[in-house]
């Protein structure tokens, strides 16, 4: 059952897993400027109420963590690898500044983030993640991290350009090399990734070397010394969250909440313990839900800059049965017993965005078929350098119906046209 924010607040849990300061009606966030909440239809349950409060209180929690002496580590772009490493340190917490890309949506554009980014040269030609530049510049929406790491190399041009702009604006970044992931040639020594792809062992060694370098900088900044056992423990914790997400991904949890849950995989919303507690409850409840037979199961490619599109999908007669929100490497279980740096290097190499579009789209298609999708929706991110190549590649591989749409930070002005396209696709 779904409902608006006011009704959703009546479902606030009597026993929340969040501490007192982070509980309460979600309407307070709307009153504080997160206006998008007023235009969403929520899955009405205490567990998802906690989920939303957990998401919306990240800034407060980060500030509290800093006050308690934790070092805040900004992990840019890699979508999941560095946070596992950071969480091996007792004294550090990983934060994902790229998440600022949702701020223009949640604020319904009533924020200076994009105008400020534009004034710094990052105009509409770049992906909405340019909001991050505005957030750093204004020093609002999140505490500026104590250390910044950013993967570079085989990443999208938007982010590579924005990260350099951050450096130029006075935010030093430790860049680490994420090489393009390609299939190994017959004459190269190779390793096999979990996806089945064989890649040159050199790529694994390069990433591993980079991770050791990052660990050295974290040791220095936190005053802790990372050892194999600590990192293995962090990997086990990460696996617990991945296991919960696997349960949620196979459940009938509505699309909007599913999107929010999956996003937690990237950095546990800055608190892996709470993340695990929140997702445990969501998973428990989600497994009791049954899919609405009136809704057509679809596989969704790429995250949406406007979260309301997940509501629109269901209004149009569809539901998510599978996704590739660009970070499948943050969802697959990790090896717990071997060399943990090797495990993380393999994880990074499994980043679907670091490889070829063909390899990613093939995996999307396999996964779509495995989860019973009746069609695939490729959601373009405006300005993102990878998006122009995806739908055509998928069309050349797929025998499933395909729809390509573009989702900006606020879709209200073209929501009727978007609905028509979605409905047409669902009815076909």
């Amino acid at each position, binding site marked *: 059952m779904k409902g608006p924010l006011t009704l959703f607040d009546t479902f606030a849990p009597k026993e929340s897993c969040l501490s007192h300061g982070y509980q309460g009606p979600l309407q307070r966030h709307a009153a504080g400027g997160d206006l998008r909440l007023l235009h969403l239809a929520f899955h009405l349950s205490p567990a998802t109420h906690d989920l939303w409060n957990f998401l919306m209180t990240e800034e407060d929690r980060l500030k509290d963590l800093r006050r308690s002496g934790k070092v805040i580590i900004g992990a840019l772009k890699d979508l999941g690898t560095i946070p596992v490493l950071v969480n091996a340190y007792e004294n550090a917490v990983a934060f994902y500044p790229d998440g600022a890309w949702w701020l223009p949506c949640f604020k319904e554009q009533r924020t200076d983030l994009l105008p400020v980014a534009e004034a710094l040269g990052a105009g509409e030609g770049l992906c909405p993640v340019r909001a991050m530049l505005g957030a750093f510049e204004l020093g609002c929406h999140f505490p500026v991290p104590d250390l910044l790491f950013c993967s570079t190399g085989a990443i999208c041009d938007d982010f590579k350009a924005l990260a350099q702009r951050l450096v*130029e604006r006075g935010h030093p970044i430790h860049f680490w090399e994420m*090489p393009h992931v390609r299939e190994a*040639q017959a004459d190269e020594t190779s390793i096999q990734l979990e996806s089945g792809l064989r890649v040159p062992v050199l790529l694994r060694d390069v990433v591993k070397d980079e991770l050791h370098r990052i660990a050295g900088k974290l040791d220095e900044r936190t005053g802790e010394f990372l050892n194999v056992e600590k990192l293995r423990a962090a990997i086990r914790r990460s696996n617990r969250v991945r296991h919960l997400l696997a349960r949620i991904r196979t459940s009938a949890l509505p699309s909007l909440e599913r999107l929010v849950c999956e996003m937690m995989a990237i950095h546990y919303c800055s608190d892996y313990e709470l993340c695990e507690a929140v997702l445990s409850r969501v998973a428990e409840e989600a497994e009791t839900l049954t899919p609405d037979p009136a809704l057509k199961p679809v596989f969704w490619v790429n995250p949406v800059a406007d979260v309301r599109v997940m509501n629109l999908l269901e209004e149009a007669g569809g539901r998510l049965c599978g996704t590739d929100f660009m970070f499948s490497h943050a969802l697959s279980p990790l090896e717990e017993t071997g060399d943990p740096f090797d495990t993380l290097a393999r994880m990074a190499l499994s980043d679907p965005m670091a490889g070829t579009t063909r390899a990613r789209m093939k995996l999307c298609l396999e996964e779509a078929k495995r989860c019973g999708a009746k069609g695939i929706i490729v959601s373009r991110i405006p300005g993102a350098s990878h998006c122009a190549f995806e739908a055509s590649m998928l069309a050349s591989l797929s025998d499933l119906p395909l729809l390509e749409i573009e989702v900006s930070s606020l879709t209200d002005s073209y929501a009727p046209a978007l609905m028509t396209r979605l409905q047409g696709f669902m009815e076909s």
Partner: protein
Amino acid sequence: MKKIAVLSNVIPDVWLEGQGITLVREAECSQHEPVTLRAGMCGYLAFLPALLADVDGVVLTTTCDQMRRAAEWLDADDRVFLFNYPSTLHQECLIDAEKARLKGWVAQLKLRSNLQHERDARVCDTRTHGQQDIRQVADHGRIAIGVIGGHFCGERQAVENFFAQRGVQLALWGCEGGESVGDVAQRPNDAFYEHLKTLVTQRHLAGLIVVRTTWCDLWRLACVRLHEVLDVPVLEWVMDGQSHGQPFPDSTSRTRLEAFCELLQAQCQEAP
């Protein structure tokens, strides 16, 4: 002799010397029929299918995401080589490994039979000739400018002529295929800006034009930074290609470039 287009300045000629191949460094866009692109794709890609038909192989690099994606978009695995070029300075071992792989690919390419048609040398050695021309005329006392950027979707000679007609000399051609101006994609890329500052001083450039395609994010923001760090005027020139039979440059670009030339001339007259 096999003809290979190497479309990135991070791969210097010397890496391919002695391999018995003819190097092509830039697509002569006016000679190639462009294909229609999807929104979001770099305008230069429109010319690559025709270029690929005209050469034996194409080498692209991962320095730019558009080129990384284009390598598979061209759908000719055995004739397209994607060089995995690092964006940082601490993994240069990748370069050594990729150099060896490139050498192997060239050797394989040479083993294959020649294309049926004999090609002329129209695109050969354009890089060398272009550099000589520019350097020969750089000190004749006229206002000197530089043009830098990513892949240029037009003809360098046409640009040179355009400026010459307006009393401005092109003293630096730093687009892909031209003189190397450093690696804009390196992170961080302070060295790139420092190198450009030096070039501007050494070449006595009165202004710099940064040319890019609509969807080129790296040069878009590099241009913003160049405005901040250079002491000379900087103009952004967005160019996605030139239609066959149409005048070069298009009317909007022409107006912008002419205004820029006039600005530089006025500044030059005002200078003591």
